[in-house]
């Protein structure tokens, strides 16, 4: 196990490279999900505004 971690003397380089790569994968997942959530919230707001306008229009047409 200690041999595995030591990576034949290249530990600092090998583990930083793999760590960075892993961080990049996690970053991609988190940022893609966050972007989707924000876009969905904004679209939901736009849809709510649209429904609100339509409801007001229907009320105005009745009066």
């Amino acid at each position, binding site marked *: 196990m200690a041999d595995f971690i030591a990576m034949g003397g290249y530990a600092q380089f090998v583990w930083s490279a793999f760590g960075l790569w892993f961080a*990049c994968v996690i970053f991609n997942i988190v940022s893609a999900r966050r*972007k989707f959530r924000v*876009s969905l919230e904004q679209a939901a707001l736009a849809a709510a505004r649209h429904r609100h306008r339509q409801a007001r229009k229907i009320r105005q047409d009745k009066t």
Partner: protein
Amino acid sequence: MWTWFHKLASPPHFYRLAGIFGPWLLWPSLILLAIGMYGGLVLAPPDYQQGDGFRIMYVHVPSAYLSTTIYALMAVASAVGLIWRIKLAHAVAASAAPIGASFTAVALVTGMLWGKPMWGTYWEWDPRLTSELILLFIYFGYMSLRASFEDISKADRASGLLAVIGVVNLPIIHYSVIWWSSLHQGPRIKKIGTPSIGDDMLWPLLLLIGASTLFFGAMLLYRVRAEVLDREHNSRWVHDMLGETTEAG
């Protein structure tokens, strides 16, 4: 064929399909990445010249591969968007850019981490390294150009043009190790039939390249869905879809 293509390019249809296939790409890609990592870190024997240092290859090569492949896809999508005025193609190009930029950065830094013990230096103004750095700057330029426009269709046209012009950098990156004498080694797995590395070193690499591509596909689908929502949030199908879910929930 064309009707199929037009149906795929319609935002509601793509949105629905991407929602189904996104998770189906993500989980298998993560499992395959884990298997590939185990193969690369544990199962592959140390290199006879580089010892365990060569294992950086298992993160460096897939990242470098993605950096150029994603750019090629982005340029093709931009060209399709510019020529046939397909908005979804621009959405694909815009969504690919941040993923491509992140893997380009990883390819550069893992390359530096590999270069230090093997070449004795983190950085050298070598053709391969310099052209890869230029690729990163093109990604950044593309993204900041997009961000500088309020109007999304102007952003599409300007950044699409940049993506198409920037494609000249790809052959430079690819052939840099052949055209100029370079510190960077030539391709080792491309010699068909006789790859210059052993099978037990090769399979984790090929698996990681494939799994990274699947992972990119999953990330692209997530991002294109968001991009489609941004562009279509005033359209009927988005209101219908969100109206149903909010009223039901």
